[in-house]
């Protein structure tokens, strides 16, 4: 595909501070072995995009280490590949940026140096397996200026956060864009914050919006174009799982326990979701292991009970421990006789023998990276 990809690694309009305290949004672990950015990256690579810029502002160290030179996605190429776009990297890029317009303005030189005709750009506040080829076909066929990807089924979108919705005419043209206080049942079309546009047009629009004092991509670029009738909508038809807050994050992880979600999101052989290779050993189940309805990553050692849970690489669930309805991230240990229910345990945590840690689906219990409880 003759397009450059642009990924905003940071959070806009999400409230998942627990998991972003030490890492940028895009680096949040998800689904037993992935990080959130793996989905966006893989979608782009699967669509034939070979040149991808990642705009970061802070705490992007684990993201850089995860992606390295991009070789896991065959993106360590000579003439293209992954390019990190952090603050201060370029002359004139001197400060952090608060919104997408500012971020793109800061890295306009990157966009100018690319040679691709189109730009596919978007945020990382959900995971999905989407076909950008179809969106691009629609974009080219309808001769739109911008095509916006949206969903009619925003799975696990928070009801307490601002949300951008579209009004869409029968011909697929977007006729309105609303920034609403919160999600409610009446909204049909929720923005996926992902867009397709000609590269040179994007550059012009950003420069123009910036000259006239604009501060928001939505208000100062998108809305005026909608009024001109130049914006198309493209529906993402496969499940789109949002991670707006910790409860949404837990629910979206557990959603993978449904075979159909797993199939559409992870198991599509033509559209693999690729992640960093870890050289883990096989999962080892002990004599006392009782695992049901769970996803277990490689390198885990399970000798306790695990039900309705997502277990990351290298996790150890000891004999007599019970884990239910929880997400246990990489290399954490659940001690003998400990009992976890509706918990999200970040990396490298140690839950000692006999602890009972229980939240609820709307208010999961959370243990931070490396904590010992």
């Amino acid at each position, binding site marked *: 595909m003759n397009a450059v990809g642009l990924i905003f690694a940071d959070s806009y309009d999400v409230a998942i501070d627990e998991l972003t305290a030490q890492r940028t949004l895009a680096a949040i672990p998800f*689904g*037993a*072995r992935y990080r959130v950015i793996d989905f966006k990256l893989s979608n782009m690579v699967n669509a034939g995009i070979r040149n991808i810029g990642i705009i970061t502002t802070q705490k992007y160290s684990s993201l850089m280490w995860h992606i390295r030179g991009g*070789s896991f996605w065959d993106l360590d190429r000579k003439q293209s590949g992954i390019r990190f776009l952090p603050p201060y990297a370029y002359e004139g890029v001197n400060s952090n940026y608060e919104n997408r317009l500012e971020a793109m303005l800061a890295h306009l030189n990157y966009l100018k140096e690319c040679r691709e005709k189109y730009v596919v750009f978007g945020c990382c506040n959900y995971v999905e397996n989407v076909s950008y080829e179809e969106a691009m076909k629609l974009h080219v066929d309808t001769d739109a200026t911008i095509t916006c990807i949206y969903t009619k089924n925003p799975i696990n979108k928070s009801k307490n956060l601002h949300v951008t919705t579209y009004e869409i005419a029968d011909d697929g043209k977007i006729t309105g864009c609303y920034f609403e206080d919160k999600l409610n049942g009446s909204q049909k079309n929720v923005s996926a914050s992902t867009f397709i546009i000609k590269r040179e047009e994007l550059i012009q629009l950003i420069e123009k919006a910036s000259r006239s004092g604009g501060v928001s991509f939505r208000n100062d670029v998108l809305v005026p174009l909608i009024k001109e009738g130049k914006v198309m909508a493209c529906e993402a038809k496969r499940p789109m799982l949002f991670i707006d807050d910790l409860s949404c994050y837990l629910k979206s992880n557990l959603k993978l*326990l449904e*075979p159909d979600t*797993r199939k559409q999101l*992870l*198991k599509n*052989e033509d559209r*693999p*979701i*690729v992640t960093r*290779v870890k*050289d*883990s*050993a*096989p*999962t*080892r*189940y*002990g*004599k*006392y*292991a*009782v*695992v*049901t*309805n*769970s*996803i*277990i*990553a*490689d*390198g885990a*050692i399970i*000798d306790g009970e*695990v039900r309705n849970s997502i277990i990351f690489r*290298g996790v150890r669930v000891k004999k007599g421990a019970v884990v239910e309805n929880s997400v246990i991230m990489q290399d954490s240990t659940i001690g003998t006789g400990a009992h976890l229910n509706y918990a999200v345990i970040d990396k490298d945590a140690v839950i000692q023998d006999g602890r009972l840690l229980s939240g609820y689906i709307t208010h999961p219990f959370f243990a931070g990276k490396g904590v010992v409880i």
Partner: protein
Amino acid sequence: MLSKKKCVAMLLAGGQGSRLAPLTTYIAKPAVPFAARYRIIDFSISNCVNSGIDTVGVLTQYQPLELNDYLGTGSPWDLDLRFGGLHILPPYQAQKGGDWFKGTANAIYQNIKFIKRYNPDYVLILSGDHIYKMDYDIMLQEHIENGADCTIAVIDVPLEEASRFGIMTTDEKGRITEFAEKPENPKSTQASMGVYIFSTDALIKYLEEDEANPESENDFGKNVIPAMLADGQKMYAYLYKGYWRDVGTLSSYWAANMDAIGDKPELVLNDPGWRIYYRHSFNYPQYIGENALVTNSICGAGNEIDGKVNNSVIFNNAIIEKDTDIEGSIIMSECHIGKGVKIDYAIVDHGAVIKDGVTIIGDRSGDPVIIERDSVVSGDIMEGGRK
């Protein structure tokens, strides 16, 4: 980055492995899958990498396609280097005609040019068909300290098995005084592992002499080692005491797989200080279903398991449906085991389909039942009969 390597490894991966048939019908023995995620050759290559050896020539000959593809650029083992790295060395034709590799020594002889490019002080010769975790660097240090021309790694075997091996007799300093290939009356229990370190000059000299001798079978064990010993070269044995398994037969292959399961497995695969690297196929995390009971087993990625699995090794992307009972078996990648199946003491090769309700039971006193690659089984198989 330097223009020289201290030690280059040459890995003999050309064997046909006929005693492992039918697992080796389409693939070379070193490429046979092992322990839920690996191939047999991963152990030797990972040993090299973990021992600090970053230049490995892999000599191939028999059914190399899948092996070549598996090795690829060497990137899974971090051996995709600009200087050094992993190189596949197939047989070739030269101006004066070419030939397949004759014996193990001839295979190395034909690739002296490869060795010379790295100008190594030492050459490590390995075979790609054993399962072990060995730090070759310790052996190399001993070789250097002894000022040896050749050092041969040995393991201690039970006396009654010694006549199956090449047996070393050594003096009190470990210097080899006698070597007997499969002796009827072994004088010691130190058996060669087929792992040799040579000082490069000695290796090249003896390979050239061996090649010039028309009566030689060009084999290290049969020809080169005895010739060096006869010449009074300084040859030492290096006693290795860790885990080591020959996986030359179906039952030894099965047993070595079983070594990787259990609370305290004999073969530890998740030692962060000695990783076994392997090539990842695309997959996703495994799902264990509502009806599953998986115990005392190891499993790769991408499986969907809804049955009972015990004392078993499950590779990648296998589907095991409910009401099925798998005991003491090896299920390779992409297999589909239907509902109500019972499997006991079997090896189900890649891509096989076991239909609902089938029972497969091996005879534990013999080899496990082998279900061949991509086959479809709809009738019962009992007591060691072959499909």
